[in-house]
């Protein structure tokens, strides 16, 4: 392994605040075209600040070069394979950026009179109908800003539903395999968390659920397929137990990409579902957002949906054409839990996801899920054929859905390298590693989600890379333990960062 510094490594990190010089600027203000009045007359001096914020002072070329240079210090989905489990890193079609940038969408004010925002409201209505059909639940709110926001909406809806029946339930159940957002949401919504065990097949332990589902339970939050990448075949029984206890059943839609057009949460018995438009529906993830987390709900939950809701009415002079409906925002929702945020949600994400659904149609969405599941099973089979699974066995040896979990425990025992080391060595091979150390249930876990948009060749290259890293570690485990070598920086001291936090540039 070459220890020579790469060009990128020699180029040390310098922030925009350390660049530039006093007096430089990228901005030319528009001319003052009104009679100037003394500022003191308009805003009393005591309300104004005396020291200006120390923002950068750079020219436009400096600004562009700075951010282009640091952008190259990122790995991204357009450059390479990104099998980050639970995150559904599928291709982001560029058409979506083009249509979202059209002025009629991008420069539309959120408080525009609905009569003059009919295109936007129709788009939202159509997206709601499509998501409703995919979920198998009749009502949709697009308002939540991300999956965790949708979860919070769902648990608050549950609270409102029980309160409306005069019930004060105090507990919410989640499996011990749940995404971290589920338990965090439970606490934020004022409930006590109760964990349900996982059975030997990787599904919900039905007897444990039965024992815990008493009349103090408000809701069970579930992901299906779950975070182990497995479809829970006992879902009907689970729904029966939860509903029998008078609780609601909540679907974490992070894994919806496995079942679009194949199986619907509503048909499984779920009352509330959230979607991640930035996972299954191609909203680019932006390095940590924006996302969007619409929810679909059953009839009994509908009265409590966040307001406003989009309504469609026949126009008085309807003639049967598309123009014969008008769309509006209904604020008058007496049982609504209220707003979760400003305005109508992340509309720019709606435009992209709606465009995606239009591109694929019913058959294309089903093809996406089938291919996602095929790619995952193929990759797992390739790893098996290459002997990788002797050291990285699947945590549950079944047909998987769109993702699968490997355990790095035998690798750690026999080769002396941890899952983290394998992940870091993958960086040198030009791959984004899978999700590591999640789910918590599996020792040294690797959660691998290839998605449907990758070619067989890419899956083969990735499997080969893992096999090569294991072979290399058998010869010399130090190589992986000290990886990566070729990235802009090498392993970073996270403990030091947390112990003495430096979270802004000293100026």
């Amino acid at each position, binding site marked *: 392994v070459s220890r020579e510094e790469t060009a990128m490594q020699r180029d040390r990190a310098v922030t925009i605040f350390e660049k530039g010089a006093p007096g430089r600027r990228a901005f030319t203000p528009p001319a003052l075209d009104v009679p100037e009045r003394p500022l003191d007359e308009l805003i009393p001096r005591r309300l104004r600040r005396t020291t200006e914020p120390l923002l950068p002072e750079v020219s436009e070329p400096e600004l562009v070069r700075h951010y282009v240079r640091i952008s190259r210090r990122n790995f991204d989905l357009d450059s390479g394979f990104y099998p980050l489990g639970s995150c559904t890193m599928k291709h982001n079609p560029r058409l979506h950026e083009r249509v979202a940038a059209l002025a009629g*969408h*991008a420069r539309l*004010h959120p408080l525009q009179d609905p009569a003059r925002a009919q295109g936007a409201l129709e788009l939202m209505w159509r997206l709601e109908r499509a998501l409703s059909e995919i979920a198998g639940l009749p009502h949709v709110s697009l308002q939540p*800003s991300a999956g965790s926001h949708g979860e919070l909406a769902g648990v608050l809806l549950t609270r409102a539903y029980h309160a409306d029946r005069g019930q004060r339930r105090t507990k919410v159940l989640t499996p011990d395999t749940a995404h971290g957002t589920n338990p965090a949401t439970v606490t934020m919504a004022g409930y006590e968390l109760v964990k349900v065990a996982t059975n030997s097949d990787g599904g919900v332990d039905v007897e444990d659920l039965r024992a815990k589902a008493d009349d103090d339970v408000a809701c069970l939050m579930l992901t299906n397929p779950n975070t182990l990448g497995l479809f829970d075949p006992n879902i009907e029984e689970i729904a029966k137990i939860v509903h029998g206890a008078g609780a609601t059943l909540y679907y974490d839609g992070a894994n919806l990409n496995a079942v679009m057009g194949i199986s619907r949460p509503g048909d499984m018995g779920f009352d509330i579902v959230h979607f*991640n438009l930035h996972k299954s529906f191609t909203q680019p*993830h*932006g390095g940590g957002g924006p996302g969007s987390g619409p929810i679909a709900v059953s009839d009994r939950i509908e009265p409590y949906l966040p307001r406003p809701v989009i309504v469609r009415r026949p126009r008085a002079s309807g003639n049967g054409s598309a123009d014969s409906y008008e769309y509006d925002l209904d604020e008058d929702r007496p049982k609504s839990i209220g707003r979760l*945020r*400003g305005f109508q949600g992340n509309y720019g994400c709606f435009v992209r996801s709606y*465009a995606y659904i239009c591109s694929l149609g019913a058959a294309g969405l089903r093809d996406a899920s089938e291919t996602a599941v095929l790619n995952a099973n193929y990759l797992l089979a390739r790893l098996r054929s290459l002997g990788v699974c002797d050291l990285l066995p699947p945590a549950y040896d079944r047909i998987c859905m769109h993702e699968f979990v490997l355990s790095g425990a035998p690798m750690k025992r026999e080769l002396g390298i941890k899952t983290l080391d394998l992940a870091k060595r993958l960086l040198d091979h030009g791959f984004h590693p899978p999700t590591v150390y999640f789910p918590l249930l599996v020792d040294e876990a690797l959660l691998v989600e290839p998605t449907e948009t990758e070619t067989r060749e890419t899956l083969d290259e990735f499997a080969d890379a893992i096999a090569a890293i294991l072979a290399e570690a058998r010869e010399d485990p130090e190589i992986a333990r000290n990886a990566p070598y070729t990235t802009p920086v090498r392993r970073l001291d996270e403990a030091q960062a947390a112990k003495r936090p430096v979270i802004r540039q000293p100026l």
Partner: protein
Amino acid sequence: MSRYTAVTDADLAAMLEEVGVDSVERLFDEIPAAVRLDRPLELPDGLSEAEVYAHLRDLASRNSSAEDELCFLGAGMYDHYVPAVVDMLTSRSEFLTPYTPYQPEISQGGLQVMFEYQTAICELTGLPVSNASVYEGPSALGAAGYLARLANGRPRFVVTRGVHPHARETLRTLSAGYGTTVAEVALRDGVTDLDAWRAAIDDDVSAVFVAQPNFLGAIEDLEPLVEAARAHGALVVCMADPLTLGLLEAPGVLGVDVCVGEGQTLGNRLDFGGPSFGFFAAREEHLRRMPGRIAGETRDVDGRRGFVLTLQTREQHIRREKATSNICTAQALNALAGVVYLAWLGRRGLVELGELLVQRAAYARELLSTVDGISLAHDAPVVREFPIALDVDGVAGVRRVIARCAASGVNPGFALGREYDEYPNGLLVAITEQRSRADIERLAEVLGMAIAAERAELGVAS
């Protein structure tokens, strides 16, 4: 196979053989028949790229955007100019398409952007700690409420009606979960009624919430408002418009604990309400109660400067039910737009732009007050937005006037009576740097004619 998948018949055969099943259908055998969908989804057939473009363009054409009319509408989001460098940088694959930076060695670009963004937000707010963004403005205020809940657990919030109505409602929605009640304090002469404010705060108050400038555009005198809360040990949360913070005293200097706000005014387009970003800054003592991602500086094994997500033991993926928030995906790309915009404006530009807004708004306010049927709704100092009162019949009359102006290609503002019973005839007018003197004069002319027409019609009717 769609245009986004790549499994040919030959691939399929080879892949199924490798897996050891004879059809894709077999891969779904675990799903019980009773919960399988036995029909195609009822959705239209897929379309070509050109067809999808045409459909989305048609929908766009049925909206009247700030490109199509002279827009004086604000009330929380504003038609400021978004520079070309923002579009260019936010559309780069390297920033657009990665996930949250879980692997710092290959995410230094995004992590450094977060670090720079946090620095800029600390500078604007005068507070030492900022996270890497939350969803947007109103839910940022809600998140500040949850921080207060974690900090002191007292049973009541007090919020001035100067806070954006959507933010007040969001605070109520979220606090209903954990049981903190919310009391509102009225406005007087456009700003928070100080006597009522003092009377509403006691030792049971967890946090108070103010806005700067407030929803009516007025600049609040924060000092006495902060003092009243601190006397009872309540946290002070200020929702600020970041673009005004080149001119107005930094909330942190005035003693607020948490400063949050809507980041749309910093280089983010209107997008019918989102995505934009929310910012969240606080005093040092709240560092370990902050929601969301925080980037921190460190070194790699060879001593190079680098950045990581830090203080993660606050977060849901580590701390689960004991996390300080459930937030995971936030608004990294929009926060990038924010920091690029601030660097583009620069140290002087932020002040110059603020001063231009103040001068143009003052001109507009004076001009409109001379129009027949218009009076000022308050005369407190403002930066870019102010309410006027129209001599027409309540909120319905104001809405009819707005519709009349629309017919002349002018969107004159927001009908305040939609949210404020106390201002039934109010119209909230926002002036951005994209509205010139000529545009303002056009507004005065069109609004004057619309009011006259409305009154003439009512006169005829009565």
